[in-house]
């Protein structure tokens, strides 16, 4: 555990303070230092801020028609929510959701295909965090609790979340939920997934593309639950499964006009 500059800053909590006070101020005082410190750190991975050709960009394809098969959507949602200890408060107002079902009009509100086939309009759409390439939620987070990993996953550090909900306002897809109550009140203690933590009251949460499973070489829980409908892979690799699928099938992405570059593709 050698102590480099970034760690020093982190341990004393100054990085957060600088985050709050504006990194710009620090830049003014010591131009380049911060960048150098951040770039100098790490395990070979470039810092998240760095725009560079990444080797990995995780993405997902959702075959909408296959999702309409009975039980698929429910199975996916249950798999996701139970593995991540997502609470169910039973009402939409306080709902916490990582993966959920919505209809065509809501999913593509504002840029519906003008004369979309009727049967498509009637299909259920699985919604989740789009793990955007240009995530607006990351830009607004004052504590950097939300950040974009080098592999394209938009991740959250719940320890840092202060519950300001700027990210919820910034996300165009409604992918984020706020814990108005202690989530453990709405979870069955006997059904806890002991390998994954819960959240606490006052923080925002969302889909994490199952980073903890990817680390163990597993597929995301939803993909595992419905392999016929969902596919997951590296969008940066032209030969990956998802790229091959996308080469063959026509797809849609949500709210492309916003320029956030979602990584979830709906196959229609």
């Amino acid at each position, binding site marked *: 555990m050698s102590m480099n500059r970034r760690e020093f800053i*982190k*341990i*004393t*909590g100054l990085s*957060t303070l600088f985050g709050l006070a504006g990194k710009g101020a620090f830049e003014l005082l010591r131009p380049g230092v911060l960048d150098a410190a951040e770039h100098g750190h790490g395990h070979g991975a470039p810092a998240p801020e760095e725009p560079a050709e990444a080797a990995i960009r995780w993405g997902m394809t959702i075959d909408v028609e296959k999702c309409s098969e009975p039980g698929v959507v429910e199975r996916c949602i249950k798999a996701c929510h139970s593995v991540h200890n997502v609470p169910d408060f039973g009402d939409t107002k306080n709902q916490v959701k990582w993966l959920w079902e919505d209809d065509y009009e809501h999913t593509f509100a504002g840029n519906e295909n003008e004369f979309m086939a009727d049967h498509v309009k009637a299909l259920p759409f699985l919604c989740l965090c789009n793990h955007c390439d240009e995530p607006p939620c990351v830009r607004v987070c004052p504590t950097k609790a939300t950040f974009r990993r080098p592999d394209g996953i938009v991740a959250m550090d719940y*320890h840092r979340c202060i519950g300001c909900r700027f990210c919820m306002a910034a996300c165009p897809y409604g992918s984020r939920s706020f814990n108005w109550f202690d989530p453990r009140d709405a979870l069955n203690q006997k059904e806890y997934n002991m390998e994954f933590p819960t959240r606490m009251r006052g923080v925002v949460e969302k889909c994490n593309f199952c980073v903890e499973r990817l680390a163990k070489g597993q597929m995301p829980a939803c993909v595992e639950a419905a392999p016929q409908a969902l596919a997951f892979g590296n969008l940066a690799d032209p030969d990956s499964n998802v790229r091959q699928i996308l080469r063959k099938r026509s797809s849609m992405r949500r709210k492309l006009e916003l320029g956030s570059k979602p990584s979830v593709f709906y196959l229609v």
Partner: protein
Amino acid sequence: MGVKVSLGVSLGAVLAIVAVALVGGGVASLQPVFGIIVPYAAFVIFLVGFVYRVVDWGRSPVPYRIPTTCGQQKSLPWIKHDKIENPSSTLGVIGRMILEVFAFRSLFRHTKAEMASGNIVYGASKWIWLGALVFHYSFLVIAVRHLRLFLEPVPFLINGLDLVDGMFQIGAPTLYLTDLLLIGALSYLLARRLIVPKMRYISLANDYFPLFLILGIGISGVLMRFFIRVDIVSVKELTMGLATLHPVMPEGIGAIFFVHVALVSTLFAYFPFSKLMHAGGVFLSPGRNLSNTSRAKMHVNPWEYPVKIHPYEEYENEFREKMKNAGIPVERE
């Protein structure tokens, strides 16, 4: 003996204490000296010295009732009396003292006067008030927080204070706000003495020394919490030993702990002999703790003695003829 000497001596003294503690704390056989004997001795010096100083002040009476009046006196019933700034009752005095002790009321009045193109201009200047207030309150919270090492079980309120102080939950162990504030405020108070020419002129080594000392206490504490870790359970074993009067010296406590303790002990022992006695003095200062009622009630001076007042008889004897000529009545024709 200029600023450099004062600064050098003060800083040198603090560094010397650090050095002695580092060396001594590193030697196992000396650890009981630095961990037990020195703290006990310093604490006793503090208590006895403090009480002695206050009692010594008490041995001198307050012969006259002369508080500074910073507001309207109590006079005619229709004139609004300033009960706090010019108290006429014990209650008013208590109010004034509470404001003074807990909010540094008088320091809050602080303005700065400067010359600008031939005129004196006055500016609000609350920084010294803020710096002093932040320093004192941070120090208080830090001191109270340390009770977790001297009480078992740790009272709910102390744990609560700990949580509030670490409420930003930055890092682990969590960063205390008061640690930042204390060191920030002390740095301000020190910088002010060094940078402002007037302050530099009036500052003595015994102004710099306590600043360096408390700064040293703060820095060694922060180092111990975040950088040069010590086993807190062993530390509490030691501190509980002190607090239960059954001192024990656990093994394996790092030297940084002894540095911290040595500096704190120095502060305790230094306190009664220094300007830090303002902590007791502020309560006893007759400039603020008296009511302005000497016209309504007689204040008795224990050593008052009669004096020779030029008697009227002598006066009349000397000027009788002149008085009679001027038509001024006299006692004896």
